[in-house]
């Protein structure tokens, strides 16, 4: 019988995991370090700080859900339980739908395992524009290497699924270069359901790696607990106040939980971390908190192939093309990365435009549907300043992300590229996902080319999505330019740190998880040294 690390840990009686949804009265805990969020940044930080012998308390708004008990591969269950806002978080004008995790392990529990180091051009841009001089490829390589080792990032040599093969062969024929994606998996069954929580614990998410180690080392995990504000006293962060949420995670149950801690570490992910900072009324003299939030806005192109694709099967992402990242300098025309998404009925049906018979005709060919994505590298050009986070009346975050003409131009360019390569790979129909594209799409590259040139590019006509939220608490060497320094230290209050995707001053230009793991490992190790005087060997 396979063993589930979470089920075993819980059964061992040694783990301190408490579900705040069951709390009957207010309570107070103490810790050396309180960490808000158990995703990419929070998970790595929790492991390293507890290895250093520090008493760590992890706060997670989501639930503790795990493979042997919960991951049944059903979208209808996964989205409301594992994602922020039922996988339907939207920007202010509702023009962009955002996927983010809300569960123990954060977005890493539901992500698609693609693993890229921070691209050298991105690091160079940060050095040049944000004074992050020591973030050289050489200095960071060690940290990415350690993270890759800890999380089993491997070359994925299994044959790509057909959805990815189409990207590969289409790119070849269109003269666009492509490469293989590395993945953080062990004994992956090549199922393709990573987005619903890996049912086999093959994906090396925070849920089954760093969070369990931290618990083994005596950390406490509080689930269904939403951090409301950072407690401040005498110019220092002294803890966090949180609200217990009900089982669905939608409503506070009216119970307050206070964690007093010498060090406060925020890792709720972009959008959520800046929102927590705003709710805490932290000093923000340059008005930078929540600003420059990036999304890698994604536009989408569907195609019908004359053969079976069955895009729900197999590693969701195994091939990518950086042709149009490499073709343009970061501050030149909008560059974009090409990838494919996994295809499951709900996400596919809500993404495809139109309704009635037209929509159904498409769904009837669900098994021959192929989809390519273009991820815009936002945040490098002055016409791409990202979005800004503010608070709704109930204190929850709202991201306003206006899509600039510059970004739209990148999307038009990528619609063309995607259609060209889908036809080159043998597609019989290609349909950019846009309301103005006729049901059934275009039947030739020539037709598509002419039509795409004149598609009106506006929100809620062109489908725009995102699964990569970054920025909003940017790092920089100087307080005028950033919210935290290169080690995640908040500029305006002692003992407060940020270690998650919100520290990036631009988007990454590649899927962000490994950038977060590497940077969080570096910064948490540095923090451990500051707090304990010890060098921590990681990974153990």
């Amino acid at each position, binding site marked *: 019988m*396979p063993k589930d690390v979470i089920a075993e840990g819980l059964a061992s009686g040694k783990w301190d995991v408490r579900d705040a949804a069951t709390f009957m009265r207010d309570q107070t805990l103490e810790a050396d370090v309180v960490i808000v969020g158990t995703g990419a940044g929070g998970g790595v930080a929790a492991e390293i700080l507890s290895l250093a012998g520090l008493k760590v308390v992890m706060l997670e708004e989501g639930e503790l859900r795990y493979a042997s008990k919960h991951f049944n*591969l059903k979208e*209808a269950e996964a989205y409301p339980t594992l994602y922020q*806002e*039922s996988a339907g978080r939207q920007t202010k004008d*509702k023009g962009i739908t955002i996927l983010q995790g809300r569960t123990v392990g954060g977005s890493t529990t539901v992500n698609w395992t693609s693993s890229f180091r921070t691209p050298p051009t991105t690091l160079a841009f940060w050095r040049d524009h944000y004074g992050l001089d020591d973030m050289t490829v050489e200095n960071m390589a060690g940290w990415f290497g350690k993270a890759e080792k800890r999380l089993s990032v491997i070359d994925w040599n299994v044959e790509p699924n057909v959805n990815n093969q189409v990207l590969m062969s289409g790119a070849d024929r269109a003269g666009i270069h492509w490469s293989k994606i590395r993945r953080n998996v062990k004994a992956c069954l090549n199922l393709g359901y990573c987005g619903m929580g890996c049912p086999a614990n093959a994906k090396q998410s925070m849920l089954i790696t760093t969070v369990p180690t931290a618990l083994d080392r005596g950390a406490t995990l509080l689930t269904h607990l939403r951090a409301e504000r950072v407690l401040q006293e005498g110019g220092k962060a002294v803890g966090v106040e949180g609200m217990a949420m009900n089982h669905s995670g939608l409503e506070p149950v009216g119970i307050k939980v206070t964690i007093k801690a010498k060090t406060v570490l925020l890792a709720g992910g972009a959008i959520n971390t800046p929102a927590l900072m705003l709710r805490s009324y932290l000093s923000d003299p340059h008005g930078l908190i929540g600003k420059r939030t990036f999304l890698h806005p994604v536009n989408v192109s569907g195609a019908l192939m004359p053969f079976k694709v*069955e895009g729900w099967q197999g590693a969701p992402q195994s091939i990518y093309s950086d042709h149009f990242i490499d073709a343009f300098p970061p501050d030149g025309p909008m560059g974009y990365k090409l990838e494919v998404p996994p295809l499951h*009925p709900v996400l596919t049906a809500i993404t495809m435009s139109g309704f009635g018979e037209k*929509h159904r005709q498409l769904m009837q060919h669900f098994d021959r549907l192929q989809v390519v994505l273009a991820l815009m590298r936002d945040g490098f050009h002055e016409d791409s300043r990202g979005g800004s986070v503010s608070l709704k009346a109930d204190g*929850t975050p709202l991201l306003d992300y206006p899509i600039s003409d510059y970004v739209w131009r990148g999307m038009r360019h990528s619609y063309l590229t995607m259609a060209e390569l889908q036809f080159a790979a043998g597609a019989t129909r290609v349909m950019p996902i846009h309301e103005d594209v006729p049901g059934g799409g275009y039947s030739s590259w020539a037709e598509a080319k002419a039509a795409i040139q004149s598609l009106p590019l506006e929100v809620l006509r062109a489908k725009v999505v995102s699964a990569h939220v970054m920025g909003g608490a940017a790092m920089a060497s100087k307080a005028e330019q950033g919210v935290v320094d290169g080690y995640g230290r908040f500029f305006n209050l002692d003992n407060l740190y940020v270690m998650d995707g919100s520290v990036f001053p631009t988007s990454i230009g590649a899927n962000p998880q490994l950038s977060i793991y590497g940077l969080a490992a570096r910064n948490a190790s540095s923090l451990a040294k500051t707090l304990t005087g010890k060098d921590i060997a990681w990974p153990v």
Partner: protein
Amino acid sequence: MLSRRQLLKTGVAGAALLGLARLAYGPITPDSLYAVPAKARFKVLDAESRTALAAIARVMLKGALPRDEAEYETALYQAVLGCDTAIAGLPMGVQAEVKELLALLNSRVTRRWVVGVGASWETASDEDIAHFLNRWRFSSFLLLRSGYQALHQIVFAAWYGNPQAWVGIGYDGPPKFMEGYWNA
């Protein structure tokens, strides 16, 4: 064109005017399987909203709903139930927005003037409803476009999240061999 503020006002005022829920959930006589009080099954949708959503879902899901009459009724009922579940899973703030949208669909005044459906949802024709959906879908007014997109998202998530809806799309559901994986 109405401004966003005006629209919301009409929506809210319209809902207030309306007061009583007039329309029972029309087309379905619950069979024994569903013969439980509506209240117990639906978490957020009131009778009127169920009627409106059933009419909209009937048009959005044309071709997807089964042809057999008895199966059709059950499937449509399940679609509306699925909408209810989907909405109930949204954060409270977003639920409030969806309810505003439903109020707009339900109020006699806004149904006629903003939605453009003169007849009650019970009697509106498929053509009228498709016309309304397309008008919102291609509207130059952002708020109407977002209203259409919200309905699109809710109805299709509700429908295709249900394993019974996978018939005919070449998808057999998640791999069966995983079911016993942890007890193997």
